[in-house]
């Protein structure tokens, strides 16, 4: 195994992100292994292990679903599936974003000691949250069995939706990861604003149910990113505008990601 690596020629790093992405691609199985190993380590010495994730989500969904459907006189068979799917996807989105601000800081000892590509940490973070999402999908599965909604061939659209959502989250993670490594306030800022962002995004309620007032939410890009995964699971195709917003997010964020790589990657070991 021989590779030539000019390590530091100033001004020759336009393709920095390409090299990094390529190297991280080779480490893809390793990042999945680590995501899984980290998940296990977090629940080490507990009997249920990662299934505590499922228990947490199930308790939340059952509690909120039963309570709110009583209080607000909602149709359980309509409200509970929509709440479950919404909450599970929101958990994936919000934890990916909140934790992205400290991706590099958490891995400081690796960054300072091993020459690893930067995308490796981003990939590992994504896979860890996808593993959590996979566990929580069990809750969705059970709820959809209990309250059979109109699952159909349309539901398969959830998969491309998830991919678009994941790519957006990867881009956001890179931006927040670099920014959070340099400016440590970002981590706290993001976790302070996440709860309000939760209420500004139609997660616990279905925008279709709010009627007229739903127009308030179409200005929140996250509404659309969540819709492209949630709507198919509730048996209806997402609106075209939601896909457009998803693609626009990627188109706008990608140049920023490349720019940050060329500017910040080299400085990362000094920041963490």
């Amino acid at each position, binding site marked *: 195994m021989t590779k*030539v690596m000019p*390590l530091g020629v100033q001004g020759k790093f336009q393709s920095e992100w390409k090299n990094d992405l390529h190297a991280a691609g080779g480490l893809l199985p390793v990042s999945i292994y680590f995501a899984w190993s980290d998940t296990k380590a977090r629940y080490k010495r507990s009997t249920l292990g990662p299934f505590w994730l499922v228990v947490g989500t199930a308790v939340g969904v059952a509690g909120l679903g039963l309570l709110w459907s009583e209080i607000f006189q909602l149709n359980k068979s309509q409200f509970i599936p929509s709440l479950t799917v919404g909450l599970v996807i929101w958990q994936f989105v919000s934890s990916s974003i909140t934790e992205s601000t400290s991706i590099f800081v958490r891995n400081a000892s690796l960054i300072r*000691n*091993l020459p690893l590509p930067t995308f490796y940490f981003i990939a590992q973070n994504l896979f860890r949250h996808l593993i959590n999402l996979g566990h929580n999908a069990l809750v969705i599965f059970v709820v959809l069995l209990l309250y059979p909604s109109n699952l159909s061939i349309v539901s398969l659209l959830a998969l491309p939706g998830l991919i678009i959502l994941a790519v957006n989250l990867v881009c956001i993670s890179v931006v927040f990861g670099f920014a959070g490594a340099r400016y440590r306030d970002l981590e706290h800022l993001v976790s302070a604003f996440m709860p309000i962002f939760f209420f500004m995004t139609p997660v616990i309620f279905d925008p279709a149910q709010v009627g007229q007032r739903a127009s308030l939410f179409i200005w929140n890009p996250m509404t659309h990113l969540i819709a492209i995964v949630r709507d198919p699971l509730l048996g209806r195709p997402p609106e075209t505008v939601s896909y457009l917003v998803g693609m626009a997010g990627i188109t706008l964020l990608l140049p920023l990601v490349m720019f940050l790589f060329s500017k910040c990657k080299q400085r990362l070991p000094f*920041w963490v």
Partner: protein
Amino acid sequence: MPRLELENVCLYFPVYNQNSRMLRKMATNLFVGGKIATDQGYEIVRALDGISVSLRKGDAIGLVGHNGAGKTTLLRVMAGIYQPTSGLAVREGSVCTILELGAGLDHELSGRENIFRLGLLQGFEYQELVELSHQIIEFSELGDFIDLPVRTFSAGMLTRLMFSIATARTPDILIIDEMISAGDEGFQIKARARMESLINNSSILVLASHSPELISQFCNRQIRLEHGKIIEELCL
């Protein structure tokens, strides 16, 4: 063929302060007249200054110098972790590093699981690790401790584990920061034997140490650093 070349490498190290400290500094600078150069809100330390080194197969170089002379920084530039601010660093071949004790280990997981974690990050294949793990465990002499969480390990045991993983396969370039001195005497003898065989097997070794004895045993060249500059170069 492995090689490691640094040409006139300089490294400026930004040190970021907390805002309050920065603001206070700026305030004092108003009165003092800005003698302390705080550039754009952070201080800059010149960690390496015009370093040129050329290493080829079979070279074993020892880095010596006071604390803060730039030894570890230089090792990180050689490993490709820090990019030089100016100058050129070229590296060919696979690299293994032992820089910080415990880096890359998960302290909740067992020693055995950590062999896989650290091994994968050092560029081993999973299957390769399955085959090598027996040998790694045997060499580390950790015995039954290997299945205990790493947080129960002593510094010496961590050293054994990390050294055994990093040297399980012959890397082209091995970069070590003051490590082997932490193991006990029995392990040091084994470690020395392994290092000798690594050097004979055409690796490049870079070792930073405060022990002249260690350096003279393993290295055929020595560089003395002071304030980030090479002030002395010897053949041993």
